[in-house]
């Protein structure tokens, strides 16, 4: 195991790390924009739910490499384009989050919703100030899973030339440098655990009313 390889190549590692962060986090942000309204719709109307939930399941079933390869044919992008990878990961994240959000909203007790309506909350404000905050714990759980999955999936993009830290895997494979591959694995896992911890903390921060229950539990 050639450990000197690592300090010699810090620049390249940092560059790939940046690319990895971009490719895994941007899809999550974009996905939230689509998933919240879709999840709301699925929760609200049974026919919408009957279409959206199976469709999400269907999309999530498609293996990542397959999606990376098929999307260019559908979108007209290049295989090696970052747009391709970002769109594919956004689709996965939306598929995962729509179900999570729909279920999270369904979990909000109808008594609370009724109370809010009785207090005079208009539907939009009720959604934003009451339903959504109460849905946060389940939403954060889904976000954590989606983010960790994305961070792991981005490296598969290395097979088509764009994989963030995955580039360390393909290069290490061609030149037989296990330390390079191990570095890539360790960094990917660390990145995922860090993102997971950050989201967990953010979720706790966003639900102060749960603190009493949590410290007592």
């Amino acid at each position, binding site marked *: 195991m050639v450990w000197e390889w690592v300090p010699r190549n810090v620049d390249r590692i940092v560059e790939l790390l940046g690319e990895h962060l971009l490719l895994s986090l941007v899809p999550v942000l974009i996905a939230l924009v689509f998933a919240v309204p879709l999840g709301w719709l699925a929760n609200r109307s049974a026919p919408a739910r009957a279409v959206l939930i199976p469709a999400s399941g269907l999309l999530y079933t498609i293996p990542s490499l397959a999606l990376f390869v098929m999307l260019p044919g559908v979108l007209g992008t290049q*295989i090696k384009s970052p747009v391709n990878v970002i769109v594919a990961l956004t689709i996965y994240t939306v598929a995962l989050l729509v179900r999570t959000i729909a279920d999270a909203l369904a979990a909000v007790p109808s008594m609370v919703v009724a109370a809010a309506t009785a207090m005079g909350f208009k539907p939009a404000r009720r959604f934003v100030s009451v339903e959504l905050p109460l849905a946060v714990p389940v939403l954060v759980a889904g976000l954590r899973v989606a983010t960790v999955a994305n961070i792991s999936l981005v490296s598969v993009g290395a097979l088509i030339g764009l994989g963030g830290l995955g580039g360390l895997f393909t290069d290490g494979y061609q030149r037989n440098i296990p330390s390079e591959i191990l570095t890539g694995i360790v960094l990917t896992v660390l990145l995922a655990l860090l993102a997971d911890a950050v989201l967990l903390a953010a979720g706790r921060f966003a639900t102060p009313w749960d603190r009493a229950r949590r410290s007592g539990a």
Partner: protein
Amino acid sequence: MKRTSPLLTGALAALLALSACGGGSDPLAPSGGGEEPAPADTLTITSADFPESQLLAEIYAQALEKAGVSVQRDFNIGAREVYFPGLNDGSYDLAPEYTGVLLQYINPAATETAPDAVYEALKTQVPAPLTVLERSEAENKDAVVVTAETAQRYGSSLADYGQACGELVFGGPPEFQTRPDGLPGLAETYGCTFTEFRPLDTGGPVTVAALADGTVQAADLFTTDPAIEENGFVVLEDPQNNFAAQNVVPLINSAKATPQVTEVLNAVSGKLTTEGLIDLNRQLNAPEKPEVNTVAEAWIAENGL
């Protein structure tokens, strides 16, 4: 959770229908120009995805930079099938190439095999806007390589094999199955059809390991690979020249081949030798795995370029 099957099929059909309205553009074509198109006087250098190609490209790059030319590197693209379209459409300007295989890629019916014949044919047949500069004496050929035991048992020349190939498993890069001098060429020239083809890597560590441990009995390796000597492998002789001469040569966009650039690259070609290539590969493979640019830098300094 119950999913109604009509929904499944409906959604799948929708996905397929969507692909019908996909753009006509080829998803495998390189992104013409990339996100930041290089300025007109910058040379974009590319390489195939095996270490020697990368090394040669890096040598070109450093030699050109030393002469004051501005270069952009985009290495490790893939097999020739992948980066050649990029050279053709201007996404890349320069790549290190090997005369014989390049000629056969451009013209699968080419029959030339001797170094000069191949080079002359190449010069006339390279499609515009590309051209080749002076070729080097250095040569790195594909070869069918076997272990010492196999050579003892069946022979040390491809002419000895013929029917015997049917008892052997062959390993090589995936494109070896379709290249003119790959499996089709071996079948035609020597009547050699292997019982199975296992796609491995491009003459890299996996192929060496597979040959050494018997996963495959014959493999496509490069003649400048130090692993051949290290493992006691035998390069099968090729009396009928299935593999044409493969001298190193720069493939460049004619518009970018200014007199200065041409001079630098020809000088590099002049200094490259087959022995030198083997030594460079040995350095790259050394246990401490030096970086490509370090090895390239050392070679340039040594050769006074």
